[in-house]
């Protein structure tokens, strides 16, 4: 046994200079010039990363269909407007909405409200994702805790967030904080469930393998549980980011003086400014689509092994 190969447990540190790595699925390895093989490995990985982005764009050429679908939608909308000749407060035409967009974009109103809502969504996502995945991890690990807590968690889901939002505003004020909380609550449940399912799908045999390797708790998480549950986690994230937009708006609807939800409310109830409402709604959709798109790209990059066959 001795001989042939250097023993790993006494592997001299001096063999490697400045090796460091970003773990994840595509590891990036930096190695000193000396080791040609490894260096070319590094280059290959970087190159593969770049190439997979290009492939993403190319193979997802259906993405090109998005503008086409949008054009069709706007066309039908314009047609209905022209045929019915409705007053703008009932159904504005695309042109009226576009003009309204230009005015609110020019005077900074739109950007102001959009940025508020974006912050709420961001805060809600960070808060909701961390608490839900942490609790999901604990529940998946401890059947006892799950049995103890799950009735409360399920029961809490039967309370409509819409009904809870005003209360949260009474407790936490008009500001951004209460909206962040509403948003976090909205995404909490689906993310929690997906985290639990994801971690439970980890194969028992792979768990044995990690035990046989004397892996620490953290290593089991990093090398096994995280990558194994990643597909399900990303699925939960897709639901989560979409719901987060709704969550923020629900919070703003309950009570607020800024944000896109406030803008919709104002336009709809106070001013009968339906074009403005359409502008706000379209921005909200754009946000939701962008967030969803970001998660899709993450999926594409992280789950390469799922595509290869």
């Amino acid at each position, binding site marked *: *046994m001795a001989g042939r*190969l250097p*023993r790993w447990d006494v592997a001299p540190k001096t*063999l*490697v200079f400045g090796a460091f790595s970003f773990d994840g699925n595509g590891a990036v*390895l930096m190695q000193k010039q000396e080791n040609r093989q490894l260096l070319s490995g590094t280059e290959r990985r970087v190159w593969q990363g770049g190439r997979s982005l290009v492939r993403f764009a190319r193979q997802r050429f259906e993405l090109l269909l998005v503008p086409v679908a949008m054009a069709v939608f706007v066309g039908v909308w314009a047609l209905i407007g022209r045929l019915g000749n409705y007053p703008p407060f009932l159904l504005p035409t695309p042109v009226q909405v576009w003009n309204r967009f230009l005015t609110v974009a020019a005077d900074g109103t739109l950007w102001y409200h959009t940025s508020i809502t974006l912050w709420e969504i961001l805060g809600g996502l960070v808060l909701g994702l961390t608490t839900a995945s942490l609790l999901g991890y604990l529940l998946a690990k401890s059947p006892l805790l799950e049995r103890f807590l799950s009735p409360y968690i399920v029961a809490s889901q039967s309370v409509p967030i819409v009904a809870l939002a005003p209360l949260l505003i009474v407790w936490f004020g008009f500001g951004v904080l209460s909206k962040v909380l509403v948003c976090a609550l909205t995404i909490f449940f689906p993310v929690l469930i997906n985290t639990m399912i994801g971690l439970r799908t980890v194969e028992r045999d792979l768990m044995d393998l*990690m035990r*046989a*390797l*004397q892996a620490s708790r953290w290593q089991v998480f990093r090398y096994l549980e995280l990558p194994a549950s990643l597909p399900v986690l990303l699925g939960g994230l897709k639901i989560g980011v979409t719901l987060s937009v709704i969550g923020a708006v629900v919070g703003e609807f309950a009570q607020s003086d800024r944000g896109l939800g406030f803008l919709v409310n104002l336009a709809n109830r106070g001013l009968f400014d339906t074009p403005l409402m359409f502008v706000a709604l379209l921005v909200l959709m754009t946000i939701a689509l962008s967030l969803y798109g970001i998660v899709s790209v993450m999926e594409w990059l992280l789950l390469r092994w799922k595509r290869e066959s």
Partner: protein
Amino acid sequence: MPSTLRAEGIRHVYRGGSGELLALDGVSLSVDEGEFVAIVGPSGCGKTTLLRILGGLLTPTEGWVHLNGQPLSSPRRQVGYVFQNVNLMPWRTVLRNVMLPLEVAGVPRGVAEERARQLLALVGMEGFEEAYPRQLSGGMAQRVAIARALVGSPGVLLLDEPFGSLDALSREQMNLELLRIWQARRVTTVMVTHDLQEAIFLADRVLVMSPRPGRIRTQVVVDLPRPRTLEVVYTEFFGALSRRVREALDASSAL
């Protein structure tokens, strides 16, 4: 780092919702440095249970296991384990699967990669470093699993029906490969199988187990000369050995 493995008076009871199940009763065995021992027995007789106990993955209800004279109560890195199903991580490439034991052991990435490449060469899997497990055939995946079990230079190799899912031809091929690897590395090896010919072809000794609760009924010493080639299977001596193992198995099943 050659190693010896001893187990004495192993008894194991599984406790579940539906009561107790006596899986192993009074199993003792001893494997010498660099020896190849095969364990055969009917399905469900406790072979996997025994192997998991030998690997420290399972604590027996009674009895003890010594690795190099030291009590073994939890898994050790000196023991390489090949699972009954291949058990590769589908999200890691072949190379990264083989690197895993070293990464967990905290070996620097560069060293780990180099060693993993050497092991993949040893099992004849060069050129597949960047492939994913689902792109491999059963035999190739099994080679990778063996490379992974050997990459940490273990003194003991435990194999649980590693070629159970292969057709006869690839199985023969893999037997030859395993023999070559074992000869190159001289690892103390315990292999569970239900293929008698495979057991005799590979092993120095074949242990025959009884149906549940598993006990070791007989041992058949295989004093065939090494290195062995596939032709040995057709010799009269091999046939006689097969008959002895077969009879031992039948006798123990009849009890």
